[in-house]
């Protein structure tokens, strides 16, 4: 092997300052031993893991408890929106018939399109065709019993503000007030609370506000007291017992609405005025 003259390179020495600095490395690193660096790294990993878990839990909670609006003053124990049973004494409104499915769940009838109603001009109805106006068409969503709210739901209380009338239990179909429900009564001070379970499929990805329009038996919109458009906005809740549904809740409380009749009809509609649900409810 031919030797080459690389003497300069071979004799290359590091400056003395470099050597001294390198020799002092053990003393300089006493304050930051390897174990400390390893601990710091482990701590960083744990912190990242905890942060990711916290974010995931927060997102899951947000997804499970998606609430459009909440009002702690609502007493959901007083939810009473139901349809009359077949033993309803009032036979003047044929569209009030309802049946039950095989599970015994009350199926509210579709609204009678021939009923003369005065609707707001900005609310086109999504009419459900009833060809012969005899047999009611079952609605898409079956009625569920009054939803079971979590114990910490705002507004939940053991004592409903609306005491059921004699013979009526919560969840049972309401017995109509004797007399012609189309005639105004003395007025009801208790708020009317409507609760409807609407399938998520029906909403088809709609995440905007849902509104409720209330009509008296004459078809007149109970709208004079709707001083603010926000008075028509419903609450939308999601309950673990019925994950495929949204529970749409509307109350007349604090909206200046005077209830003179024992029976009202209502429509739930989207912000483009598309009606997605209609039904009949009774006051106590």
């Amino acid at each position, binding site marked *: *092997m*031919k*030797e*080459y*003259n*690389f*003497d*300069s*390179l*071979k*004799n*290359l*020495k*590091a400056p003395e300052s*470099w*050597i001294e*600095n*390198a*020799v002092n*490395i*053990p003393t300089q*690193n*006493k304050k930051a031993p*390897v174990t400390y660096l390893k601990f710091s790294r482990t701590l960083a990993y744990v912190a990242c893991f905890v942060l990711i878990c916290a974010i995931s839990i927060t997102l899951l909670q947000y997804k499970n408890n998606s609430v459009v609006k909440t009002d702690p003053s609502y007493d959901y124990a007083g939810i009473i929106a139901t349809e009359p049973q077949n033993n309803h004494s009032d036979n003047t409104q044929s569209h009030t018939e309802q049946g039950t499915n095989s599970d015994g769940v009350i199926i509210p009838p579709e609204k009678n399109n021939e009923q003369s109603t005065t609707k707001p001009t900005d609310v086109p109805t999504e009419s459900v065709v009833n060809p012969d106006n005899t047999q009611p068409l079952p609605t898409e969503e079956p009625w569920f019993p009054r939803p079971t709210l979590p114990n910490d739901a705002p507004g939940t209380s053991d004592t409903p503000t609306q005491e059921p009338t004699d013979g009526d239990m919560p969840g049972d179909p309401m017995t109509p007030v004797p007399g012609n429900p189309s005639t105004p009564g003395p007025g009801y001070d208790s708020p009317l609370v409507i609760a409807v379970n609407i399938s998520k499929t029906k909403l088809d990805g709609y995440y905007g506000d849902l509104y409720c329009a209330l009509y008296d038996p004459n078809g007149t919109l109970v709208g004079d007291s709707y001083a603010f458009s926000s008075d028509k906005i419903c609450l939308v809740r999601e309950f673990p017992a019925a994950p495929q549904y949204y529970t749409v809740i509307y109350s007349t409380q604090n909206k200046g609405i005077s209830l003179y009749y024992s029976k009202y009809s209502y429509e739930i509609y989207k912000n483009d005025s598309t009606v997605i649900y209609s039904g009949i409810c009774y006051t106590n």
Partner: protein
Amino acid sequence: MAQKHFAGLTFEQVVREYNSTVVAVCIMRLQNWADAEDCFQNTFLKLHQKSPDITDSSHLKAWLIRVAINECNNYIKKNKRNISLEDHKEASVDFPHEGADISWALLELEEKYRNVLYLYYCEQYKVSEIADILNKNPNTIKTMLMRGREKLKKIYGGDIG
């Protein structure tokens, strides 16, 4: 705290024993004193931190060379610079251009040949040992040696055997 020992030497003894090897490797790679100092310090810092269990002095030297090369490569990547004599004339390493000493020509070689020729001619390593240090195939080392010699000849204009 008990002093660490490497191949029977204390840390200070290792620094004083192998500082010329480490600085030469750094200069070979970086061709710049300022940059070489950082990698020089980092090499011995790694030795102190990693505390490899080395009992043989030859292994210790090979370990230091390998770490020094890695530190230089990391330094270059981090700074994203192409080290060249033209860019770093102020702090560049100058070897005499006179006499039979052709160290200056080695610095002008391409980077991939510099380390191989240095380890072969200056540190007297065998091809297999160089392959082990640089983590390359021995045949690759042979080829790089051959090509390196040819290029070195062109640079300093002499004969190579």
